[in-house]
């Protein structure tokens, strides 16, 4: 059970090798030695991640197999994760995602779309069903500012995030009054392995910063959080830039 000040007893990370997902789990498990379940395509490759979480204060770390594209299995995976927790799931972090060929129109474009959007819709609904039965819980969805206004440079990736961002906002509204909350996280450029080798954008941030802001927003009961927060203001302007100008934004 999440306590009165937002400390949690259990976290499930869908996309167990995601750096942002792990950083958020690490931040969440600190207060009460929470149980963390990492769900990923190759559970046996999550050893280092598990060790890191134990070091961060997790009481216990379990792994389960999860494939974002195998949508038919998502309810079962969430049930397995709940069984691994051995009690209620307080937070589900939807952290999986693909950037693809720099987010542009490569051969893997449909794979990016299927993973980031279809997979997220399916996993998000499965998580919602589990948490509704419990009568409480939170879903943290890792979106991106790339979806706020899609850019030429990574429009396949950006459009998939635009879709999942909208989906999770709607999911949050749909779940209002059920005891289940949804938090949409919109980081800017984060220095992770996904962006390794790319030139950092201005206002680049770190996984730890994203995690700290996410947990703070979760405790405040907010629906959306931008990291760094100034991006929210910046995108009010970006959203209204004329297209010929927007097209020229570099990167």
């Amino acid at each position, binding site marked *: *059970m999440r306590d*009165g000040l937002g400390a949690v007893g259990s976290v499930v990370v869908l996309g167990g090798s995601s750096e942002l997902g792990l950083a958020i789990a690490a931040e969440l498990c600190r207060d009460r030695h929470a149980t963390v379940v990492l769900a990923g395509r190759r559970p046996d490759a999550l050893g280092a991640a598990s060790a890191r979480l134990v070091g961060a204060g997790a009481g216990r770390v379990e792994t389960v197999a999860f494939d974002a594209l195998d949508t038919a299995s998502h309810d079962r995976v969430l049930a397995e994760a709940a069984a691994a927790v051995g009690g209620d799931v307080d937070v589900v972090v939807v952290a999986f995602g693909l950037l693809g060929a720099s987010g542009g129109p490569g051969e893997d474009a449909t794979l990016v779309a299927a993973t980031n959007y279809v997979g997220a819709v399916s996993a998000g609904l499965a998580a919602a069903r589990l948490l509704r039965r419990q009568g409480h819980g939170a879903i943290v969805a890792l979106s991106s500012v790339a979806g706020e206004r899609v850019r030429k440079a990574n429009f396949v990736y950006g459009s998939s995030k635009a879709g999942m961002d909208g989906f999770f906002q709607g999911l949050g509204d749909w779940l209002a009054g059920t005891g289940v909350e949804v938090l949409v996280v919109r980081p800017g450029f984060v220095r992770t392995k996904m962006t390794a080798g790319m030139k950092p954008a201005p206002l680049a941030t770190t996984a730890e910063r994203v995690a700290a802001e996410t947990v703070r927003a979760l405790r405040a009961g907010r629906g959306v959080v931008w990291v760094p927060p100034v991006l929210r203001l910046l995108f009010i302007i970006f959203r209204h830039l004329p297209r010929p100008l927007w097209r020229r934004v570099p990167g």
Partner: protein
Amino acid sequence: MSTAELLAGWGRTAPSAATVVAPERPGELEAVMAAAGERGLIGRGLGRSYGDAAQNAGGSVALMTGLDGIVDVDLGSATVTVEAGASLDRLMRVLVPLGLWPAVTPGTRYVTIGGAIASDVHGKGHHLDGTFGSHVRSMEVVTPGKGPMTLTPHATPEEFWATAGGMGLTGLIRRATIEMIRIDTAMISVDSVRTADLEATMALMVERDRHHRYSVAWVDCLARGASLGRSIAEFGDHAARDDLPPRLRTRPLEFRPSDSLRAPPWAPPGLLNRWTVAAFNELWYRKAPPRTKGHLVGAATFFHPLDRVAEWNRMYGRRGFVQYQFVVPDGQEDTVRRVVESLARRRCASFLAVLKRFGEANPAPLSFPRPGWTLALDLPAGIEGLGSLLDGFDEKVAEAGGRVYLAKDSRLRPELLEVMYPGLGRWREVRDRLDPERLMQSDLSRRLGGLA
């Protein structure tokens, strides 16, 4: 009739959804219990527990307030038999004119009898009168394992004391017979003293407690330095008829408190901050005369000052607040001082804290009071770092042999439950007899695994 509803405690911090069932007749409780699913059932009264004791995420919640009948009043023995959903407010409005007063009333009249037993509540008279449970002569409890049982402290002491203070986890309380005290008037004669610091407050309470039925101190937790712990100490007794001025002597037992004020439905999140609260505390302290003697106030004003403002909990805004109440044994006064010091140093926006000296404990394994000092603090949940601050207080309290109050708790570290309540194992044995399948569940019992 059942509906899905979002329920929270009085502190409004961690709401969860449950199927709410509202029995209309006492005989329906067995059916309510039989209909509960795998996420179990908990009883709920007026929702005055600050934390998550009366909510049950994904399960069933029996809203007991429909069962509020006063079954029998025996003026000869000063006992009353009531259904568990009746509030103390209702009881007082009916019984005060007959010259009866509940021996124990908490800081609000808006608690049900069932809730008062399940939390084994205490009041300003604990040093002499003990807890609410100590005045229950018998109660009928519908248990999942053994069906309806009549429990008394003499015939079934284990089951009785597992239910008193048992946070509703032994079954649904259907009705109870309570011994009241007799009063001549509905007024309290109050001596109050403005003290300079915490040491003076405690010394005064040690010296004067035994001479007065009621005693409490309001501590300004924002005062620092030499004024650390400055307080208004109050000592009260039921006024005799002769104490009243002539105009009140004709209707000495009139009890019609008006609770006409209502907090606005919405308050800005930071309304109660260190500056507004400090100003309030300062005013409260300054407006009190240095010393009064035999000042007459209505019983409702003395016992239930906050009841005048309905839904005052909303003033803490959307994020709500936590109440932190702990007790430490006599001789551990230093723990109290360190907590007050730490709050003052951090400038935590704590409204006047309530300090009281407890008397003897009762046999209930999960009952909160034990001899020593208790301090209760209201703190906005949004204070940065509040979680770790209170975790630190817990450590000090546990180390001093003290405990926190489960009816107020919303955030205790689960590992500390058994340290603070060494009788937990004993309680679990009795609970396992009354509820072997663990049908009775609440968010509190899930959060603190030791109660499950």
